[in-house]
């Protein structure tokens, strides 16, 4: 489920923009300092998450050496592999190694002894492509639907769009995916049901992306349409909007030029929270469509009970989400007048 907006980054103060006409060089300095501050804050949160996860995985019973053990393997064999994977070293030492390796792109070693970064380097761009396209579709569709509903508050369109959005937002992506495969691949035979990879490991044609992207987007469109609709309704009560309406401007013009700019921060924050859902959903949807992304790696990791690989996937998705949240911070700063 998508979660409430949790953005607590500092609101840009009016003072930062006040001096921009008199001293042209200062705003950039302010903006730069604030950008660094946001970056540091977001990076710190990511580091705390990764540290928490490492400790959690450590405290839970079972480790990679045990998990990959085969039937009839002796305790000595397991101990040997544990030494090979470095699991016999002190926790603090391994933790230090893992955390200091992260910025250099070293994500540790999988239970089978391969570097996790190598395992993820080919499928990760594919998952980013899938998630990025789904985010784009979500943005366009929810802006269109939310705006359409907001133009006639309380009317049939509004109720239909809001009701439809509420209905789909809780659907698990794999249920949507199965329905799409049945309708568009099996019965109508319009689109391929499985994704084939070309020699470079990327999806072989764009048609293969359509169904996974749609399956991933539908619940998030439901979620974001409601956010767009509500943000527009909130902004519509602002005095300057009332003035624009009294001036007799056409409603679509009021919506685009007077309501939407003020609603942008809430919309950006909503989309940013959707990023996590999109990346989490992507690994599920990939399983249905046999898409060559992180989902395939994760599915293998589930079979092998390979938690270092999952930790690596969490680290890279956490980094992506951090980046998107930072973008939402920038939209908020920009929309509220601070030129970043």
């Amino acid at each position, binding site marked *: *489920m998508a979660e409430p*907006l949790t953005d607590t980054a500092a609101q840009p103060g009016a003072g930062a923009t006040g001096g921009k006409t008199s001293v042209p060089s200062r705003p950039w300095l302010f903006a730069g300092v604030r950008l660094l501050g946001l970056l540091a804050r977001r990076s710190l949160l990511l580091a*705390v998450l990764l540290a928490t996860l490492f400790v959690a995985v450590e405290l839970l019973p079972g480790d990679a050496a045990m998990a990959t053990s085969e039937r009839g393997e002796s305790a000595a064999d397991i101990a040997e592999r544990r030494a090979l994977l470095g699991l016999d070293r002190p926790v603090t030492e391994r933790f230090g190694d893992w955390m200091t390796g992260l910025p250099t792109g070293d994500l540790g070693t999988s239970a089978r002894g391969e570097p996790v970064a190598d395992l993820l380097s080919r499928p990760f761009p594919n998952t980013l492509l899938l998630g990025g396209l789904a985010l784009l579709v979500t943005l366009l569709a929810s802006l269109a639907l939310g705006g359409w509903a907001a133009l006639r508050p309380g009317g049939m369109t509004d109720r239909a769009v809001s009701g439809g959005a509420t*209905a789909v937002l809780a659907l698990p992506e*794999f249920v949507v995916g199965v329905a799409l495969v049945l309708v568009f691949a099996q019965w109508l035979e319009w689109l391929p049901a499985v994704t084939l990879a070309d020699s470079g490991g990327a999806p072989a044609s764009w048609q293969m992306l359509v169904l996974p992207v749609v399956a991933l987007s539908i619940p998030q469109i439901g979620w974001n349409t409601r956010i767009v609709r509500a943000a527009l309704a909130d902004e519509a009560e602002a005095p300057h909007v009332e003035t624009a309406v009294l001036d007799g401007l056409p409603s679509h013009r009021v919506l685009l030029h007077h309501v939407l700019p003020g609603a942008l921060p809430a919309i950006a924050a909503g989309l940013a929270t959707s990023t996590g859902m999109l*990346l989490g959903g992507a*690994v599920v949807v990939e399983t249905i469509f046999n898409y060559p992304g992180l989902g395939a790696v994760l599915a293998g990791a589930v079979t092998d009970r390979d938690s270092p690989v999952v930790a690596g*996937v969490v680290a890279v998705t956490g980094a992506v989400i951090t980046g998107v*949240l930072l973008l939402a911070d920038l939209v908020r700063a920009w929309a509220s007048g601070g030129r970043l």
Partner: protein
Amino acid sequence: MTTAPPTCRTRPGWGTLLRTLPALLLVLLAVAGPWPAPHAIDAPITAPYAEAGDGAPLGGDQLGRDVWTRLLAGGRELIATSLVVAVLVTATAAVLGTVAALRPGIGRVIDRAADVLMLLPPVLGILLVALSWPAGGRLALVSAAYVLGVPYAVRLVAAAAAPVVASGYVEAATAGGERLSHLVVREVLPNLRATLLALFGLRFVAAVYVVATAGFLQVGPQPPAADWALMIRENAGGILLNPWAVLAPSIAIGLLAMSVNLAASALAPHGGRKAVTPL
């Protein structure tokens, strides 16, 4: 305690009942489902992926087991696990959220925790816990869903509790030297009934999502258990031969998610309009 704050002034009417009814019916059906099931869930009675026919109204699955029987049996564990998660998260959030509203220092800590968890997609978090704790089974699933769900729920309760805490009678009770536990249980929580009911509905929706997704990723119930999400995963290969083996559990999960969500939004207090709908 005589004046309720405006956020709680929702009286469940016929409309609310009508919108919660589908969810209640579906939950009852799924819980009672295993009893009228005609066959054993793990007994092969048809050919693999047999089409619908005599004795198997929805055909057979990949091992020739009766899809209808497994459909009837497959919802109970999903719903029970989701209910447990929703109850635990709501109860914890009710107490912690009220405390956070009364004690701003604790509130800040919880806010930071929610900020951190925002970087972790729930599906990945549950995978990580389930894999690191292979013997945990359903307990691992419930613990992960619980830990991942609490911070947001606490934040929601804290936001709803803030106006109650600021109201005169709580201030009077605080000034009167009442203990924190008394303030939480006797003064604030009774005024948050509507919010908590809605929160419970939303956490149930969220729990159905993560528990079903975990089942689909095969970190929840293990074969040969009958579970809607697991059925979809297992039978995806035979979708051409017997679509019902995949379609029936998909419809079941879809209906469950939608009807529970409908009920949750019917229960939500219709207070001031907010830019963000709580979920």
